[in-house]
């Protein structure tokens, strides 16, 4: 399974990139010195490799911080969590997560990933690092 044809479009803030699977999407946005990957839908085996590619792509932009915003995620599978952990452990830039719903926090807590990953309740908090 390769990358589906993404819809790239210029925005006022910079470049937006988007990739989707049958059940979810990832959107890459630059916000000042940060890069935000907004994930929505199911972060499962179908979307996980695409998110992984976007993490690599985001890291190459050398932002000060990389935010993985899971606010729009309605299902988080182990394949998705594996990518979150890999991003945190292997990416040269600091990685922060946004997760506030039970559907994402429950699996993260159950696997004790909340101990390891920096999780914020909102995108604003993640960008501010608070």
């Amino acid at each position, binding site marked *: 399974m390769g990358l589906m044809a993404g819809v790239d479009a210029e925005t006022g803030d910079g470049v937006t990139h988007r990739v989707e699977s049958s059940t979810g999407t990832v959107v890459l946005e630059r916000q000042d010195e940060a890069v935000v990957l907004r994930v929505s839908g*199911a972060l*499962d*085996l*179908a979307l996980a490799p695409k998110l992984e590619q976007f993490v690599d792509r985001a890291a190459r932009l050398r932002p000060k911080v990389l935010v993985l915003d899971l606010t729009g995620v309605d*299902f988080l*599978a*182990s394949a998705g969590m594996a990518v979150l952990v890999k991003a945190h452990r292997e990416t040269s830039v600091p990685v922060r997560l946004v997760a506030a719903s039970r559907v994402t926090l*429950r699996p993260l807590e*159950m696997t004790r990933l909340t101990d390891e990953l920096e999780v914020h309740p909102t995108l604003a908090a993640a960008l501010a690092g608070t």
Partner: protein
Amino acid sequence: MSEPGFIHDCGFYASDTEFRTLLLGHLEPALAGGAPIILAYSDHRTAQIRRWLPDTAAVTYFGGRKLYASPARTIAAYRRMFTERAEATRIYIAGDVPHEGNGGTFAGWDRYEAAVNTAWDDFPVHGLCLYDAVTSSARVRDVVERTHPHTRRPSGARLPNPGYTEPAAYRALAPAPDALTTTEPLVTLSDPRPHEARRVVAALVADRLTPGTAEDLLIGVSEAVTNANHHGRLPIVLRLWTGHDRVLVQVSDRGPGPSDPLAGLVRSAGRAGLWLVHQLDLDVDLFNDQEGFTVRLRCYT
């Protein structure tokens, strides 16, 4: 020889006096040296042990058998407690593993008894699993002797178990089939994708389970289907039954199942999904039969 990590002894008692002798014999070095102790027994037994041990002992008690929620969660919970006691040169533990003789079901816990030999070997822990010689069946006793390298006797002797089997070679007991499987399933899905399985199951259980339980079941279903797609052999069949008190889902594939008999019990990179399934608030069983490999998930209404 270097100091061993996890030491796993068993013992059989025929009376309260023998239980006391065995337990206090095990804890003696801890009581003398102030080492941390973790004890997990029924409320009744816990109250008894509290009377036997000095108040000054560094004991953490878990009454009501609540530490033994499920094999994988128990393994993880102990690991967390061992980590919290990292400064100890030796941690002493003893507990009452569920089996038919104490009101539990041993199938599943036999894998636990095998798994801990490797799952805890990175900690300096000495465990003693005491079984009631009167209520433990011959089958339970046989498994206990195959999963513990040594037996401690009330006389104080500590003897090697000749039948001890390395965890990687241990063959798990087959769980008893659920009676619902003799009835027609509410739904059967062939070769479902994870998101299809989640959608169908969500619709069927919405008015039967609490939102939290339904959520755990959906995670379990999704991971079981993903696991079958990834590691199993087609066709994959998902079946769902509902009983008056429970929902049963079985996800089967035609493959031989994981080669590691401890799959799902211990966190591993290759089988993260199966491990996650075992952390949920569900009854999880894995078994092989003529159909192939099955992940069985049960939750109660």
